[in-house]
C-alpha cells in the first residue's frame, strides 16, 4: 500500500525562525515527539524533535560523553533550556531529514524508520509537506497484515 494512503495527514509544522519555546509548546500541546520545520510555502527545511532540544540544552562537555545520565545538576540544564528558548529552531533542527513520497510503499517506509530509529518522518509532494509517516501506526499496520495471512 502507498504511504500516502495510510499516513497521518496532519500538517502541524513550525517556521525556521520560530523560537525554541514555541517548538516546545507545539510538541507538548499536540503530544508529538517531533515536528517538521517548513518555509512559508510548506517546503520541508528540517525537523526538530524533543531530543534535538534536549541535546541543545545540555552543557557543551556532555557532547563528548553522549550520555545525559551524567548530568549532575538539573538546574544547569533548566538554565540552559531557558537561555536557548528564544533562539530560532533552525539553529538546532536536523537538516538532513528522512522524507518520503506518497507513492513509497508503507513497508519500505516502515523499514527505513525502524532502521534509522526515527519515530516520525515527513511525507512530501513536490517537496511540500502533505503528511507524516508514524512508526507506531506502521507497526500496527504490519501486525494487522500479519493477522490477515
Amino acid at each position, binding site marked *: 500500500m502507498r504511504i500516502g494512503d495510510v499516513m*497521518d495527514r*496532519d*500538517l*502541524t509544522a513550525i517556521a525556521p525562525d520560530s523560537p525554541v519555546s*514555541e517548538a516546545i509548546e507545539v510538541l507538548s*500541546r499536540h503530544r508529538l515527539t517531533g515536528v517538521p520545520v517548513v518555509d512559508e510555502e*510548506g517546503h520541508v527545511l528540517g525537523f526538530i524533535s524533543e531530543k534535538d532540544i534536549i541535546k541543545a540544552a545540555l552543557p557543551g562537555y556532555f557532547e563528548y560523553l553522549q550520555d545525559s545520565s551524567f548530568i549532575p545538576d538539573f538546574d544547569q540544564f533548566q538554565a540552559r533550556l531557558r537561555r536557548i528558548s528564544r533562539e530560532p529552531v533552525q539553529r538546532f533542527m536536523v537538516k538532513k531529514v528522512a522524507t518520503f513520497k506518497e507513492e513509497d510503499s508503507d513497508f519500505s517506509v516502515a523499514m527505513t524508520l525502524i532502521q534509522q530509529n526515527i519515530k516520525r518522518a515527513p511525507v512530501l509532494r513536490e517537496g511540500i509537506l502533505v503528511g507524516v509517516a508514524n512508526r507506531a501506526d506502521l507497526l500496527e499496520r504490519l501486525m494487522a497484515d500479519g493477522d490477515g495471512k
Partner: protein
Amino acid sequence: MIVTVTLNPAVDEEYLLPEFRPGGWSRATHVDRSPGGKGINVSMILSQLGCESAAMGFLAGFTGEYVRDVLRRHRITTNFVHVPGETRTNVYIVDEIGHIETGIAELGPYIPEDALGRLVTNFDRMLHRAHLVSIGGSLPPGVPQDFYRELVRNAKAKGIPTFIDAAGAPLMAALEAGPTVAKIDHRFMARVAGIPLTSIDNLIEIVSKVHDQGVEYAVTSYRSYGDVFFTPGGIYLAALDRRDFVSMFGAGDALMAGLVVAYDERMSAEECVRFSMACAYEDSLHVEKGVRSREAVEALMDKIEVEKLS
C-alpha cells in the same frame, strides 16, 4: 485543495427523544456524537461527497483530540493550532413528537494572542496550495470580532475564492473584504440595513447591498418559503417538502458544502441551487449530520422546487 476554517470547533451531541420536557430526566432513543463547527462540518460533508479538504482552526484538550481523531479517521487533512482548555461541546435535542429542536452551545476556550498569530501563519502557508477557502462559525473568546476580514483579505490577495458562513459582527467584517460567496442571516442584515423584512422585494434590496461589496453569490432563508440564492445568473427561490424531515441539525452546513462543490465544479447557477439544496435536504432526512453519499444527494435534485425570480 479546499481549505476550511473553524475557529470555534465543537463536539456535537445530538439526542433524539420521543418527548422533551424540561425539569426532569429524559432517556434518549438515539444519540449521535460527531465533530462540529461550520468549517469542520463542511469538511466532513465534502469527504462524504468524495472531495478532499484540509481543516484548520483551534483545538483544545480531550474534546479537541476527539475532533482531530475523527477527522484523521476520515482522511481529512488537518492543521490546527492547539490551545489550553477544552474544545466546546454543543448539545442538540430533537423532540420527535413535537418536532421541536433545541440547541445549547458553549462559548469555547480562550484563544491567546500568540495562538492567533500562529493560525494566521499557518493559514497564509496553506493559501499556497489552496484553490478555495470556506470560513464559518462563531468566534471563541479572545479572537477579535473583525478577524475574518484578515483571512478573507489574505485569500483574496492570492485570487482564491472565499466562502463565508457567519453571523453578526464577524460576518460584517468578512463582507467588508468581499468574499466570493456569503451565507447570511437575513434578520441581522435587515437590522443593519434598516429595511423591514416584510416582503421578498425588501430581502432582495438588503442582499443587493451585499452584492455591491463584491459578493458573487449570497444565500439566505426567506421565512418558511425556502432559501433565496443571489447568483451571477439571476435570483432564485428554492423550496423543498419538509414533511420528510427528521432533523435539521447541520442542514445549513450541508447546503454550504454543496455550494462549495457546485462552485468548484463550475455548475450552472440553477444546478448550483439544486445541488446545494439537495445536500441540505439529504442531511435533514436522518438524525446523523451529513449526507449518505453523492448519489443520495443527486437523487434528490429533481425534488427541489426552483423559481427564478429575476
